[in-house]
Structures are given as C-alpha cells and as structure tokens.
C-alpha cells in the first residue's frame, strides 16, 4: 500500500476547497498570496490526477462570452487524505516530555 502524498500547496488548496466550491482565481485570492495564478491550475490538474479534487464547468448564462469557468471541489478521497494529514500533524506535534534519567 502506498501512502498518498500531500504537498504544502495541495494541503492549502484542499483546506480552502473544504469550505466551498471555488474557481482557480478565487483560490489565489483567498490564499493571500500563497498561491500564484500561473501555478494554481497546474497544481489543480495534478490534484485531479491524484483524485484529490474534481471539477465541473460553470453553467454560463445565455449570451455570455468567453470560456466557461471551472469550479473545483475536494473528492471524498481528497477530504480523507486531508483529515489523515492533519491528524498526523497533530500527533507529531505532541512531543513526549523528556525526563532526566535517575542518577
């Protein structure tokens, strides 16, 4: 069994998407500069390949011009991976207290 990997950027994207379905540019805006608009779409495509997120195209109103936007949301698997990583981070953050050896 291989343990799924989650980079810091992917973790942030999953955290943001856990709140609501978003467009790529919304993710950039909500990340407060942590995500770049040139790289976010590549990361999202990679996360789709890994099965962490899924996407759908926005329904455009009649007469709309331009390309339809793509909305992203986490998959059930992506949510589980995020939970598992957060749980692992919490566990590792709890350091055992070192006691001095009895003399």
């Amino acid at each position: 069994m291989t343990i799924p990997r989650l980079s810091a950027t992917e973790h942030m994207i999953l955290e943001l998407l856990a709140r609501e379905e978003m467009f790529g540019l919304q993710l950039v805006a909500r990340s407060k500069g942590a995500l770049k608009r040139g790289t976010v779409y590549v990361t999202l495509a990679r996360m789709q390949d890994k099965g962490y997120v899924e996407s759908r195209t926005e329904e455009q109103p009649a007469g709309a011009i331009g390309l339809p936007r793509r909305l992203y949301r986490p998959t059930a698997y992506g949510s589980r991976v995020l939970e598992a990583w957060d749980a692992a981070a919490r566990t590792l953050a709890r350091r055992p207290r070192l006691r001095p050896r009895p003399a």
Partner: protein
Amino acid sequence: MIPGRLLHRIAARMCDANRLERIVEPAIADFQNEYAAAMRSARRRISILFDGYVGIVEAIAMSVLETSAVADDQRRALTRTFLWAVGATVCAVALLIVLTVTSLPGVPAFLVALIVPTQLPIALAVGLTLGIAFGLAGRVVSRRTQATVLLVAVLMIVVSFGAMAWSTSIPLGRHQFRQSLSNALGGHVSVTKGLHEVSLAQGRQQANLAPGGDLMAMPRRLAWTYHFRSSIACAPLALAMLALAAIARGARRAVVMSACAAYLGLIVAGEELVYRGLPPFAGAWLANIVFVSGTLALMVWMPPRGSRRSSCC
C-alpha cells in the same frame, strides 16, 4: 474585446488537448471573467490584463514543461526496453547455440558462426518480449511508446521473414553448417538440402513436385516446417501485442515472462498436434493464433489500468 483568445490559439498548438482543457482554459476563463467584471475601471483593467497574460503564459510554460517531462520518462522507458531487448536477444542466441552444439559432440568452434543467423527469428521474439517485461512492466505506457514498440516488432518481422523466406542467408547458413559438420566428421558426402535450407520459393517448388502437386500431400513434418517459417517470423508482433496489452492492465514482469515461455510451449504443442491430425498450417500458426486471440480478449473484456473511474466520489 475578449482577452486571451490569441493565447488560447497558441496554447492549442503547444499543449495536448487534456492539458489545454484542464490547465490553460480554466486560467483563460477566470482571466476573461475577471476582466469583464472590471469594466468600469481602466486602471484596474490594465492591471488585470498584465497579471492575466503573465499568469497564462506561466501556466502554458509549466504545462509544456510537464508534458516534456512525461515524454522524457517514456523515452527513458523505451531506451531501457530496447537495451534489455538487445541483451536478451544476444543471450537467447547464445543459449540456442549452446543447446544445438551440445547435442552435436565434436562440432568445431568456427562452425558456430554459421548457425548464429538461424537462431535470430526466435531470439528476436524472445528478446523483445523480455525487453518489454523489464523496460515497461509496472509503469504507465503511453500510446506513442506502445506504437514505437509495435513498429519495432513489425521491423523484426520484415527482417526475419525476409531472411527466412526470400533471402538465402539463413537457409544457406543452416545448410553450410550441416555440410561443414559432415565434412569435419569425415563424411565427405553432399548433404541434401532440407526444407529449412531452401528459400520459401524453392520450398514451394519442392512442394509442387510432391505427389499431386499439393502441399498437404507432403509428409506432415515438412508441411509444418514450411508454414512454421512464416509463422515464427510473425512471433515478435504476436508476443509484443500481448505483452503490451497485459502491461497496460497491470500485469507484472513475471506474467509477461511466463507468456513468453507459454509461446514457446505452444510452438512445441502445435508441432505435436500436427502429428495427431491437426492441419499443418494450423499447427504452425497455433501460437500466433492463441496469442492474438488472447490480446483481443484482453482488449474487449478487460479495460486498461486507470480507465475505470471511481464511483465513490
């Protein structure tokens, strides 16, 4: 004005359809919407245009770079496949020669050179299959890589078939080996050419001289040999097709190697069945027929790995 159209056209030429749809188009769509939403402020629009174009160019560049990284990975896999194929072919030739020579005690070493080409058709097929097993098993193989391997298999067929059927090099080498062996052992008689030792055209002529001019009237062994020469030349393609289809469905290296052993077993079984009443043509082509049918069955009933979509989400 709808910005981003020119970049979309450029990206369509540089990226594959999948990356265009999943990376470039969402970037352009967000950019166009952002630009449309800021129609009132000229200053804001200029800022959006600049940021948007820079971002999209960056997305296209990253997409192209990632595609070439995938291509690099496939190139490395192909190189490894062909290196393994060459190595395995050399080993297979050596093994076949050792098996031939050990069954004929007292064979002078220089005569071995005469039988090297005669072992090539089967060694090429085995070599390519082992190359596929060691070079491609356990990885995702692109259609382009599969097509390249199949093209090499077709080239091997042309070489094997040309050498075995029309050219005189392999049949001549085989006959010279037997004649030289006879001379070396003190026979000094002219060895009659067997059906393996004439070109296909000459073989057909011999067949026409057989009673009734009918190939099927020849002794079954000779008829099987005649058809087997064409069938073994096609072995690289039959084996490569099955190996690639199996690997695309997650088969391991051992499975591909077992398939190669099964092919050799089917050759022996085909010959045996000819003696028990199977038409010589069917006996000679048995291994190829089974392998091509197996490949088609895999393709029809078992989808390639990764083509099934998860329904849990």
